[in-house]
């Protein structure tokens, strides 16, 4: 059913604490992705970005990111208040129509702008019953580890969260069909991409599993061939275990050669980076088939899975 769409370039940056604006962080990254793809800015027919106003601390923060795309003459553009992996998904959907062939997708996030990132992210929770308790994402992750019978402590997870905190930006160029083969000697094809959600309430779901990841994995055919490498968006070690099980990855599958999100987890960008790192594994490291995963929300609430393959 779907039209062949390939990733032809990817660029990203992560920094512990930047003085730059999101726009400044994005500009060189977008430029690099465009140059790597061997196209001009005006070859791009659709643009979709991801970011979160709350991280920047200002409503409409995403608006100035348009500057980094050079949106003149006016561009066909959309924005999701989500990780860039979902922006990539929207771009992939747009490319399915057949009337446009080249899309730019990017995302950015400044974790360092929050006085306390853990406090800021509490605002992602149900505003009536959960956020007034100030139960933060690290605490929910700790509940999750407990539900799995693991002995990771809250302090362990808090240390992981703090060490992986980054500001960042990433960009990818997606190209459909024959145009991708013209532009790239090594296009990396998106063989399937799907995303699914869990219930929000931590007490209403089995935190030790990820059925949404399993559904997405089934839909994109993760199990239809050997997986050479997987880039999983697991901000905490126990979440990698949950995801491995949900994706039914064997022990032989190399997971997160990039270091993964336990090493660097720039908000709104880490998911797109997983796709980008999987792309690099196929385009540069000779891997044939890679799985990329992105997550959003507390305790892996929302999950996106895609399968990437070389020619």
């Amino acid at each position, binding site marked *: *059913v*779907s039209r062949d769409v390939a990733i032809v370039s990817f660029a990203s940056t992560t920094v512990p604490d930047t003085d730059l604006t999101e726009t400044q962080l994005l500009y060189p990254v977008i430029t690099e992705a465009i140059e790597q793809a061997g196209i001009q800015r005006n070859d791009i027919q659709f*643009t979709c970005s991801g970011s*979160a*106003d*709350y991280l920047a601390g*200002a*409503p*409409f923060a*995403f*608006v*100035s990111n*348009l*500057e980094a795309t050079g*949106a*003149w*003459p*006016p*561009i*066909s*553009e*959309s*924005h*999701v*208040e*989500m990780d860039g992996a*979902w922006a990539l*998904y*929207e771009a992939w*959907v*747009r490319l*399915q*129509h*057949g*009337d446009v062939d080249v899309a730019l997708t990017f995302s950015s996030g400044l974790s360092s702008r929050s006085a306390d990132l853990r406090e*800021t*992210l509490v*605002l*992602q*929770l*149900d*505003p*009536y019953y*959960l956020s007034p308790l100030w139960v933060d994402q690290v605490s929910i992750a700790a509940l999750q580890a407990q539900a799995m019978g693991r002995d990771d402590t809250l302090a362990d997870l808090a240390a992981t969260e703090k060490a992986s905190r980054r500001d960042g930006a990433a960009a990818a160029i997606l190209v459909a069909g024959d145009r991708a083969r013209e532009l790239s000697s090594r296009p990396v094809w998106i063989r399937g991409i*799907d*995303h*699914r*959600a*869990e*219930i*929000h309430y931590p007490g*209403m*779901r089995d935190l030790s599993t990820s*059925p*949404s990841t399993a559904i997405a994995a089934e839909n994109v055919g993760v199990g239809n061939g050997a997986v050479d490498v997987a880039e999983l968006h697991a901000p905490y070690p126990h979440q990698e275990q949950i995801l491995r099980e949900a994706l039914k990855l064997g022990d032989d599958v190399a997971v997160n050669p990039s270091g993964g999100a336990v090493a660097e987890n720039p908000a709104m960008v880490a998911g797109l980076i997983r796709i980008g790192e999987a792309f690099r594994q196929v385009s540069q490291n000779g891997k044939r088939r890679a799985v990329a995963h992105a997550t*959003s*929300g*507390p305790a892996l*609430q*929302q999950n996106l899975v895609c399968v990437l393959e070389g020619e």
Partner: protein
Amino acid sequence: MAERCAIVGVGQTHHAKVIEVSLAGLLRQAGERALEDAQMTWKDIDAVVIGTAPDQFEGVMMPELYLADALGCAGKPIMRVHTAGSVGGSTAVVASHLVSSGVREKVLTIAFEKQSEGDTTWGLSGGRSGGVGAGGYFAPHIRAYIDRSAAPEYVGWMVAVKDRKNALKNPYAHLKIPDITLEMVRDSPMVWEPVRRLESCPTSDGACALVLTNEKHADAKRDFKPAWVHATAVRSELGQFPGRDPVNPQGGQDTAADVYRQAGITDPLNDVDVVECYVPFSWYEPMWMENLGFAPVGEGWKLTETGETEMSGRLPVNPSGGVLSSNPIGASGMLRFAEAAMQVREQAGEHQVDGARTAVGHAYGGAAQFFAMWVVRNEKP
């Protein structure tokens, strides 16, 4: 496009301040109404797309996470679109693309705002940095339009009266001023010169929902009239740089040209039966009439002045009462898109335009820099 996209369900809440339901309850109300209209249930839906203006308006970050439960999304995909004030329109476009691409078959999309649970003008003014609100930003553009076009001052008052009179026929409209007159608008306080209080939109709550399906599912319904999406387009441009014209933005012109090309519209004033257009301040009606190609540059105000944009005119604009009568910001764009669909489905009740077959929905946002439009008809593309 791979698949035709039908609008088979439309739902909205009342747009006055809502205290009896939560944020999730508000979306659920609109969603239920759209599903009932579509003769479907929550279980039938493949994917949900929500849209709302900045998260700071309600103080909930990335609300799709919290709303997933109320919207029946366990095990399903849910996305959240944010393109400033145009978001309701952009969200409908994203949802329609899920269907027209062939990726999903039955999509529910909901746009919302619950201004009563936040402080929107604080948000619109740049939060802690302070500012002048949306009206303060747009007022100089409106003044520039009046100067350029030499439009009489009463044209703005006429739009304000017309939209509020239309709102009297819309059971969901927020602001209802039965005895409104030009004099009342003229004598209302000046808020941001030249915009008077009664020429401004209210602070509303509300949600709007659409159920979109592919042709197979729309055709399977008996004795049923869907609306069909004939064209969609979005454009964005930089908000500020020398050479940009914020009064008649290129992005708006390009969006209109794009949807007209897709829908085979060559003479918009003749070919379009009704427009639901994003008019948060009265003067945006004549300004957008020009921007969207319904009138030559400098002459949009004449359509208003001669009554052509009234319900009985040649091109009824905002028979629902428009944004001037209800402004749940994140939902306002989708309401325009939904009302356009209601018109071609002959579903608009007292504010139905007789014989509406081709309708345009329009939304804009940011510094008049984000645009979304669709063209819907009663017949298949």
